[in-house]
Structures are given as C-alpha cells and as structure tokens.
C-alpha cells in the first residue's frame, strides 16, 4: 500500500517537474515534409532567426499520409508540407490537417491558392516547361504539339509515373478527355529519344549531349543550373538550352504548387500558424523566388530575373482542384500505353 502511494507521489512530483520545466523549454515547431530539406532550410533558418522558434524537420519522401495517420494523436507533427498539390489534398482528405483562420495568410495567399476552410495554403509555384537547344528558333509551343510527329524519337522526359508528369497528363485529360489523352501518351511515347527515366535535369544534360532535341521539365531546375548554384558542370548544361513556357491550346501553362497545412493534432499549433504566416510573408516569399527559383504565391514578392526571362506566366484556367480527379486514371493510362518501357 505504501509502495503504491509512493509511486503516485513520485508520478505527481515528476508531473509537476515536467509542467514546471515546460515553459523553460524554448518554443519549437515540428515539420513533416516531402520537400528536400536543402530547399527549405534557408527559409527555416530565417524563421528561427526572426522568431527564436526552433524548427525540427523530417523529410518523408513517400508515405507521409501513412506516417501521420499511424501516429494519430501522439504525432509530434505541427506542419505538414508537400511539393505536390495532389499530395497536399491527400493529407486534407485523410483528415490529417485542421482549419486555420489567419488574416495574415488570407492577405498573403490569393484565394485560388488556398483552401477556403484554411486546411491548406500554397506557398510556391513551378511551371511544367519545355527545354529546347539554345539555337532553336521556336518561340512558343503548346503541350499538344509535343506529341506531333515532328518530334519522333527526339523528346526527353522522366518517368510517366512521376507526379510532375501524371499531373500534366491529368490536366491534359481535363482539357481533352480520356481517349485523346491515351492517343497523346502513345504519341509522346513514340517521341521518346531514350527511356523515360532519371530526373528533369537529365533533359538539359541530354539536350547538351545531343541525345534529344526537346525535353519536358520544371522551370526552377533551369534556375538552379543557370545560376551556377549547382556547380560548373550543370551550368554548362543550362548554357546549351533555352526554356519556353508551353500552354494548352485553349488555355495556359500548367503550374503545380508546393504547400502546407497545420496538422490535426499539432502540439504547437500557435507556432505552426506563425511558421505558415512567415512562409507566406514577403521576405520568405523572396527567398522562395531567389534561392529556389520558384514562382512566389504572394504578389508582393517578385520572381527571379532568370525565371522572369521565360516571359509572362499565363496560368492555365483549369484549376488544380479540377485536375485532381483525373490523376489516378492518368497514372493508369501511363501503364496502359506502356509509357516507361522504351522501345523506339
């Protein structure tokens, strides 16, 4: 009996000790992200410098939804961040985020780039672009024209199952329907100069190496290569290419977003909101533009001159939300035309 009491007393004492110790611990916020840590670290460092809040991160490539839902209410996650709109919405649909009302966020992020309920906020944008040899005289191209016979055996593209490409094909399906998309994929496959593999930068390298005459790739990779931040070798690749922002025939350029939301069971909810507000603020949006070569979502921040040199960005009218339902079918179509098996 006395032993039981002493255990209770001990527990109570340690509880008091814990709660007394809590305020002494400096404020912190935990991020689960599918973004490569190197890309967001400058932003997080700036946030810590400004607010004194410590940021802990874990980079989860695949399975963010599974991890956060398995951890349930014990999860230390405060902010959930993804590089792809589809992944962001998956988190929301699985009930892993919570609504946030913040005037600062609403002022910084245009309405189309955030959830009306406040479950998610876009933080940066990247356009699906086309790389061409520097000497090419093509000034404009549509996504549809990439499938033209002119490009037979001349196109470089990464795996059709990569989320950047399934997003593009889903957008195509939203514009033209399933049958046209299947034909489109068959023609794109016939246009491949090499297996659909590797990453977007390989498109630049392969154009420089003469393997292909056109490549589909994201805008910010060019910024990283051309600025020299990725080393001399990649600077050389970017010197061999130029970038065009393609459009859909009856629309604009496909822009995917990276974004974030506050976790449903966030233990540090206030700091989480504070972080999101910071990331959407003008100084942080400048870092997105300057260090990452992305399109800022906050109109107050300007795009990097290298990215601005591609010309005016005319965002496609079909919204990411409208494209989303076509994602899974687009992925199946990629299998159906055997997109990733190189046979040319």
């Amino acid at each position, binding site marked *: 009996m006395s032993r039981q009491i002493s255990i209770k007393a001990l527990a109570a004492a340690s509880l008091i000790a814990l709660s007394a110790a809590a305020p002494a611990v400096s404020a912190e916020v935990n991020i689960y992200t599918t973004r490569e840590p190197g890309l967001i670290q400058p932003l997080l460092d700036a946030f810590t410098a400004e607010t004194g809040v410590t940021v802990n991160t874990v980079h989860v490539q695949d*399975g963010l939804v599974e991890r956060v839902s*398995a951890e349930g209410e014990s999860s230390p996650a405060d902010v959930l961040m993804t590089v792809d709109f589809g992944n962001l919405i998956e988190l929301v649909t699985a009930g892993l985020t919570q609504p946030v009302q913040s005037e600062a966020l609403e002022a910084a992020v245009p309405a189309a780039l955030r959830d009306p309920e406040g479950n998610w906020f876009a933080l940066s944008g990247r356009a699906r672009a086309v790389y061409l040899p520097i000497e090419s005289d093509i000034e404009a191209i549509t996504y549809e024209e990439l499938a033209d016979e002119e490009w037979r055996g001349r196109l470089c593209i990464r795996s059709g199952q990569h989320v950047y490409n399934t997003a593009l094909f889903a957008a195509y399906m939203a514009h033209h329907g399933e049958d046209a998309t299947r034909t489109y994929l068959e023609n794109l496959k016939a246009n491949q100069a090499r297996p659909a593999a590797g990453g977007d*930068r390989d498109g630049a390298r392969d154009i420089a190496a003469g393997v292909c005459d056109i490549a589909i790739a994201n805008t910010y990779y060019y910024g990283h290569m051309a600025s020299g931040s990725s*080393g001399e070798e990649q600077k050389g690749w970017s010197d061999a290419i130029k970038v065009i922002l393609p459009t859909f025939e009856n629309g604009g350029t496909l822009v995917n977003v990276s974004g974030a939301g506050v976790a449903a069971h966030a233990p540090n909810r206030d700091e989480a909101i504070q972080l999101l507000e910071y990331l959407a603020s003008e100084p942080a949006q400048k870092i997105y533009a300057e260090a990452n070569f992305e399109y800022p979502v906050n109109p107050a921040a300007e795009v990097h001159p290298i990215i601005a040199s591609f010309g005016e960005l005319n965002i496609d009218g079909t919204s990411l939300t409208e494209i989303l339902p076509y994602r899974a079918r687009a992925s199946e179509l*990629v299998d159906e035309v055997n997109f990733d098996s190189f046979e040319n």
Partner: protein
Amino acid sequence: MAAGQPAASPCMSTIAGRINGRSKSRINIWTALAMATAVLALLPVGTLAVMAAADTGHLWSHILVHVLPHATRNTVTLLVGAGILATMIGTGAAWLVSAYDFRGRGFLEWALLLPLAVPTYIMAYAYLDILSPLGAIQGGIRWMLGYSSPREFRLPDIRAMWGAILIFGFVLYPYIYLTTRAMFLTQAANVVEVARTLGVKRSGIFWRVALPLARPAIAVGVSLALMEALNDVGATQFLGVRTMTASVYSTWINRGDLPGAAQIALAMLVVVVALIVVERWARRNQRFSHSAQRARPMQPVRLSGIKALIAFSFGFLPILVGFAGPFIYLVWSALKRIEHNGISAAIVRATVNTVTVSSAATVAVLVLGFAAAYAARLRPGTLSNAVMRTASLGYAVPGTVLAIGILIPVAWFDRSLDGLLRNTIGVSTGLLLLGSGAALVYAYAARFMAISVGGIEAGLSRIPASYDQAARTLGRDATGTFFGIHLPLSRTALTAAGLLVFVDCMKELPATLLLRPLNFESLSTLLYGEAARGVYEDASLAALIIIVIGILPVILLARMGTAEPHKAARP
C-alpha cells in the same frame, strides 16, 4: 531468405537432437527467442496481409492486362541476366583465387569483395555520368575518331536493360564470390584430389566437380543478390528499367491505392518464396556432410609470366568496374565539392547517426538470427525450420512496403503507450519507438535477418555433431557446450554475417526515409535528399563516406574468409 547451406546429415541431426533433448530448459530459451524473432519478422508481413484484404476494385484486371506482361518480362530479364552475370563473375573469381596462385592473388582475394560497399543506386548514377556523351570517356573516343560533337558520334546509351544487367551483375557478384569461395576453401581440396585420382582433367574439374559442389553456396549468394536487385528502386529508376517493384510504387504513390500495393508486394513475396522452396526441393536428395577432420585448403596451381598476368587481369576486371570506377568518380566529385563548400557539420552528424543505428541493428540481427539458427540446430524439425525461414521473410519485401508494415504496428504501440500513461499518470511519452529511432533498428533487423540467419545456419552446419557428442561425453552440459563449442566455432560465421548486415544497414534507404525521427539524417537520406533535387556533387561526399566506412568491414570479411578453414576446424 537464404536458401540452405549444407545441412548436417539426418543421422547426425537425430543424435544432436537426442543429446540436447536432455536439458529442455536450455533449449526453450533459444526456442522462445527464435519464436520471438519469427513473430517480429511476421508482424510487418501480417500487417501488409491485413491491409491487402481491402477491396481494390479493378486493380488486378488493370495489372494483369497492362502491367504484368511488361513488368514480368523486365523483372525476369533483369534478374536472370544479372543473376547469370553475377554468378559467372562471383564463381569464376572465387575459383580463380582458390585454384590458382599468381602474383597479386592476395590483393584480389579481398579486393573482389569491395563492390559490396557500393550501393546500386550510386553505381548506376556514377556510370550514367562517367559514360555520358558529355563525359571524359566518350569525349576521348570522339577526339581519337576525329568527331567534334556528340551529335555526330555517341556510344549506345546505358539507360537500357543491358546497362542495368551489367550494373547489377558487377555490383552484386560479391555475394556469390563470398559464399562460393568459402565453399572452395573449406570443401574443395579433398573432392578435387579424388576427382583428379579418378582421371578428371584439370580443365574439367571446375565444371564437373567445383561447380556442382558449390551449388548450395551459389544458391545462397544468388538469392541474396537477386533479392537486392528485385527490391531496388533507385538504380532502375535512373536506368529506365521498369520492374514489378516500380509497379508497387505507382499503385501506391500515384493512385493512392496502398491495399493494392500491399497485394502486389505479397504476390511477389509468394513467388520468391516458391522459387526458393523449389530450389531447395531440387537439392533434396543431395547431402553435403562434413567430417571432423581439419579441412585443408586446396593446393593452388602456380602461374607465372603471361598466364599470371592474364589471371590477374581477369580477377581485376570486376573490381575495376564494380568498385574502382565509381569510387574514383566519387572522390573526384567530392573533392570538387569540398573545395567549394568544405565539409558540413550535417554530414558529420549523419555519419555518426548512420554508424550508431547500423551498429545497434547489427547487434539485434546477430542475436536474434543466432537464436533462430541455433534453435533449429538443437531441435531440428519442421517447426524450427519454419521459424528460421519465417524470420528471413523481410528480405523479400520491397523496403518501403516493409517499412509501412512496420510503421503501423509500431505507431500503434507508441500511441497506446502514450495514451495509457497520459490517462493514468498524466505523463506523455510521445512516440517512444518512432521518436527514438528504435523503429529504424527494428526495420533494419526485419529486413536483413535473412543474411544473419542464412550465414549462421551455414556456420553451425559446419560444426560436426560429433563435437557435441564429445563435449557431452566429457561432461559439459548444454550451457557448457554452447559456450565451449558452438559459440567459439560460429564466431567466424557470426562476424561475417555481422559485417554484411552492417554494410547493408548503412546503405538502406527506403525504410530510413519513412521511419526516422525528427532531425535525423543518415548518410543515405542525406545523399537521397541532395540527389532528389539534382545536386549530385553534394551527394557524392555522402556516397563516398558510405563506401569508405563500408570498405573496412569488407576487408575484415575478406581476411576472415582466408583464415576460416584453419580456424573453423579447431575446437
């Protein structure tokens, strides 16, 4: 899932069983530990099975019509091609350094293991760059042939099936070299001499005697190598070869169909297990028994002059392609990087993390793997055998899928404990296993148990049952026999398994990505993070450290292999 090394003959097993049967209490500790190992291995697979039970709509009609034909063809071509190439290189190299003696043989003996330290995804990336039309090699060829631009002349692109087969063959052959060389060293001498006496020509010995003799060893090595190839996602992604494992990923990641991914992964597991069972069944009538006599190393044929040079060149080729090439490439890129940015504190922390977690996992894998194999030796039978095979299941499941199978029960445990303590004494433990990195140790253990169980089982089978009998006759009890005979005599096998497991843990990526705690970077996740945003030069330093740390265990492994025949037979 290591297929068996030679098992003790049935007669010996019975005796061993009877002897040890006297002290049941001792055996029960091993059996209990073995059972626990099997349960730990079964937990993620069972979790996947539960997940797979969900309705997945038209998934299988889609898979059967659109995915299976190509993916199966690609997977089979890759595995058969890489398997044959790795077996040829591994067995050939093992025979070369066992049957012949020439200048440089001592170097080849250990250096042939070096590709073990190179992760396949690094190997693939390095060769993609080395052999790129913009690289020095193609540039040199163009210069010699008088072409000025890669548009005029290019070598064939290695982003193709043949490139993948070459890369996997050259990076995975050491698994086969390791097992077959041990076999040649410990077993071949007597048999080779008998064969010579019976009139088999020297040239025929390799094909008629050595190769059939090495078959169980080849089976173990090949099954380890092929499991690595089958579960790869990095190298095949670089090289544009779409295997079944890639289909598991697109089903899960792109279509949000985790139950479907679990179903495909389990179906693949069934196929792998079936293949291993068939291979064991095909060998059911072969017996490889071992005498208690001191095993003698084979008397190698001395080569000199041009023959020695040719022998050395043959032996050096796999090292050149599988290790020296990517290694020099990485040193060169890492130096450029250090010159530019210096060595970051992050990479030092990642190195410490990697070594710590890999060491912890290695210890866990050795203890549990030993228990599974030892219980099967003490009480041979269907049950203990099944326990041993079950413990090895994790190796045949793709890393990320296995990680999901671990994540769910581990997180459930963490959550329940946290909830319980919060409700009773008001203290939150947070995520005990996930938050501390213990989940990572578990994942590595579940994934690499096969290496340890297979290696230790083989090591124990080389201890003749007559030693047990002698020890017991001389009055040692079960504990005494364990500490006096079995443990010291399996030291070599334990160390070898430990080194292999350690190197594999260091290279592990998918489970580390999913299960690591906050602020935890290992060398492989650091490498992946940099490579994912296309900054390969930054990644090269992490890759180089993985390889350099891996070299030490690999050299130890090789030295041990040479010493083995002499030590193993000394009670």
